[in-house]
């Protein structure tokens, strides 16, 4: 994940739920999709991904099933994940919390930028 880990508590689960809300994926697909969409900002390693995924499954937010992957080796089913109704509700809640938090951070940063003397001298 990005170096700003301290600013993203619990956000990894939210990102995975968001990906799954748009379609069923398996583990490797999720890491690649996350990397692609974030322009390589979020690089989620397996060590982070699978404990979170399995934890989400235990909480009932996602469920897994086996299916032949479209591009995978023939005869080798993959374990796909699907977001549940509980997961969608959790995602909505987490998104609204994130929007509230990021809005508050932006508001503080915005005011701080406006009132910071060093920045004012920099602009001048």
């Amino acid at each position, binding site marked *: 994940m990005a170096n700003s880990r301290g600013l993203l508590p619990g956000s990894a689960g939210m990102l995975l739920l968001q990906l799954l809300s748009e*379609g*069923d994926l398996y583990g490797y697909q999720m890491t690649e999709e996350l990397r692609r969409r974030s322009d390589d900002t979020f690089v989620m390693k397996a*060590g982070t991904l699978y*404990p979170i995924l*399995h934890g989400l499954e235990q909480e009932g937010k996602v469920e897994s099933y086996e299916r032949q992957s479209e591009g995978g080796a023939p005869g080798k089913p993959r374990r796909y994940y*699907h977001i549940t109704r509980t997961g969608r509700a959790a995602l909505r809640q987490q998104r609204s919390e994130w929007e509230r938090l990021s809005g508050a951070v932006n508001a503080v940063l915005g005011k701080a930028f406006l009132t910071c003397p060093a920045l004012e001298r920099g602009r001048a």
Partner: protein
Amino acid sequence: MLPETLQQWLEQALAQLRCRRAEASVRAELEAHLSEQYGALLARGLPAEEAAAAAAREMGDPVLVGGGLDRVHRPRPAWGQVAAVGALLLAGALLRCAVDREAAGAAVNSAAAWLVVPKGFWGVLLAVAPALLLLVLAARFFDITLLERHTGKLYAVFCVLAVVCFTAGARVGGRFYYGAPLALLFLPLYAALLYRQRGKGIQGLLTGCFGAAPGLAVCLLTPHLEMTVLLGLCCLAVCLWCCAKNWFGLGARASAAAVLAGAALAAVALGILILNGGTLQYYFGRLQAAMDPASDPMGRGYLPLYVDLMHRASVPLGQGLDPAALAAGDVQYPAGFVFSSVFVRDGYQLSYLAWRLGVLPAALLALAVTAVLALLWRAALRTHNALGRMLGIGCAALLSGQYALNLLLNCGLPVSGGFLAFAGSGGAMLCAQALLAGLMLSAFRLDPVVGDPALRRPAVPAPPLPEGARVAYRDGVLSIRFRR
């Protein structure tokens, strides 16, 4: 086949998993991820050794990965559920001790006397509840996947036990004593049989339908009509759950229609058996006695009369009135009517408790049993493992059905087969209930670990919706996005 570097990475990660049961599914998933990662790097033109090393770096530290998975894949202790069942077992043992003590003629004239159990009964109190709790714990640590792997052999063992029960077992009140408890233990076997029929089409459906026959036959041969109906309904409930999940792969509605048709045929067959076997006259006689117990006060009307008397003698709190004094002068109770609680031990514990200690304590016990059953139902419906779900639903339904029959019995209705869950009398039935509870707790305990990938997903998942699209159709499955 993974290169040596990645194989070592995988083994190092899996070595952190303390629960060996989770290893197979975690290994398959990590292996697939490693394989795809390695393949992608090779496709970018990296040499094999570099690609393997890069793939291992991309996966992260194997010890940390394995440690993270180990924290997730741990059996759930759920000691609260064990404690709840244990508390009921203890309450039931205390109640039985008190009833047996009174039956032995000891004087019970104050609440404090309940604590003074005559010598000889301490063994019962100290041995019965702990022994039953040990049974619960033993079943709790039993590997329920063995039920699925050895279903055929266990069915054969069940049939052998049934033969032994009917040839060498004792008979009580015209019934084979061990028939009903044995039938109780049939349900986990049936759940395992259904679990094995996943995706087997018409063959699986027929096996599932006819697979209930041995258990129902045991109930019929006992003979125990209420238990036959109860077991039949519980097997039907589990089978219909399988149909709703399209377990057999024939479509939910078609499977359910076939199962219901089969159940209707079985009900008709049972009706014919009842009409031809004279059972109908027996139940008519019991119903008549329940509606007008005074017509046969020394025969079938005795228990309904005595239970009604106990209800009338009960007070909200404390020992109730003397039944003999209450019945004095009442023509319903002829000379020779025995006012002794000895005859109401089996099945009427709630009424006896209401009379001895008050209506409130009896209501509390009933509430406690209801609460424990609700706890088991909740766990059954929340478990993700298909076998655990089937076993949980079936066993919870059976225990609840027995409890419901017991409540009806204590209300004066002419039913049998009722049993106060974990707190009734009858050693064999208590042992069977303890084993059932233990098996259910075993399924719930392993739920975080023994994941069932095919639990709730349809055979064909919904197609992903393209960007901006609201409707997509693939392989007969339509997806519609109603909101972002």
